[in-house]
């Protein structure tokens, strides 16, 4: 675990590193599915960097979260769009930050309502630890520990470049 320094890493650069990790496994013809909204941006980058022909899937986990009773429905729900058949495919779920693992669990449940994939891998830019479920990233570029009350957020700048910022909860 690296302690967070004052300067945050270049997210675009990290996307290239993530693509490098995935490239050796392209023979399985994986399909990319990005989790809204940070994962969706990264999945788009990966599609270009890896030269994948297929449209990426976009998944909104709002309907599968485990905190509906406490928090209600998220005010901004986007439609999940999976433009390919899930059945028998090797899928790569893409997200920006892996933390408790609950979002991943929700995404898996949703994906399995579409069919039975051959396998599901997980690709993230950042793993901040703090897992509450037995979930791990298959491909990860950055292990980081955050301070109390801090969270890591991926944003898209005006010029379209992805960039990290730190927020206090």
């Amino acid at each position: 675990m690296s302690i967070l320094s004052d300067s945050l890493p270049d997210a675009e650069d990290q996307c290239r590193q993530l693509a490098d990790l995935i490239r050796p496994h392209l023979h399985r013809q994986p399909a990319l599915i990005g989790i809204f909204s940070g994962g969706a941006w990264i999945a788009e980058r990966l599609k270009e960097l890896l030269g994948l022909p297929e449209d990426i899937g976009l998944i909104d986990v709002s309907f599968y979260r485990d905190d509906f009773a406490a928090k209600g429905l998220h005010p901004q729900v986007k439609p999940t769009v999976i433009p390919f058949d899930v059945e028998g495919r090797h899928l790569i779920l893409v997200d920006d930050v892996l933390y408790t693992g609950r979002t991943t669990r929700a995404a898996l449940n949703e994906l399995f309502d579409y069919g039975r994939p051959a396998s599901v891998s997980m690709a993230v830019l950042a793993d901040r630890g703090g897992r509450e479920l037995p979930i791990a990233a298959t491909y990860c570029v950055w292990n980081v520990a955050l301070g109390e009350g801090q969270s890591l957020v991926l944003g898209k700048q005006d010029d379209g470049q992805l960039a990290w910022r730190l927020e206090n909860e």
Partner: protein
Amino acid sequence: MNNPQLNTNGELTHLMSIEGLPQAIITQILDTAASFMEVSARDVKKVPLLRGKSVFNLFFENSTRTRTTFEIAAKRLSADVINLDINKSSASKGETLLDTIDNLCAMHANLFVVRHASSGAPYLIAEHLQRIGRDDVHVVNAGDGRHAHPTQGLLDMYTIRHYKKGFTQLRVAIVGDILHSRVARSDIHALTTLGVPEVRAIGPETLLPKHLDKLGVHVFHDMDEGLKDCDVIIMLRLQNERMTGALLPSAGEYFRHYGLTPQKLALAKADAIVMHPGPMNRGVEIHSAVADGPQAVILPQVTFGIAVRMAVMSIVAGN
């Protein structure tokens, strides 16, 4: 008087009427419905949002259609659905409305979908729930008397948005028995809240409520005039009972003046859409050629209705 549909955080906790709903909440419902459309297109048409929750369909007025769409919507949210068809006369011999509610709350009901013949019935229920401290139980109005049918109003708006993309440039005409129509009232409130610049009501004097202009509606008695350049035409059902009480002479005369025929439809814009809340009376308010024609979007309305009701139930149940 604070809006009984919203909780103290300004979130939607009951859906009783479109009137008084902030535009942001209407838009939220339509956007959420879009996501549920996608769910309904899959093989596994279920999401686990309301798993373990009990939805009680309390229908004091018969309606298999509406009740079925709510049932489908609730089941697609993984809720348990219980249907209670309470014939009004037997209810008056037995339990009061509020006693029924108390009993069902004791059976751990989470959401009531209520259709009632008396305008205002859902408000009575919502107020009672608040009084007994049950802010975890929610009410969705499936139609109260002549007052409101908010899910129909919302699905009508979803339909318009789907085909016309926006609201702010539209001319929308509502034709028929608006006096007795809760659908019409909900549509009118939704259209004006969403910024439709021209809302028209077309019908004979006997079927239009007084003071419609105060609701922001232009009244037309001449259907040819009223349909000119319209983008959306919403046809209302003419009920048989209207022929009594000197409101109308006959279905035939009504159809001649206010029925939507292909000739009348041609007066509207070429890409105008024709809507109807159903069930249709062919040959009374609408000609079969129009009902089955390319401009009618009546069946898609039904599909949208399930997604809209899923959206409404999941939003209120979470607040």
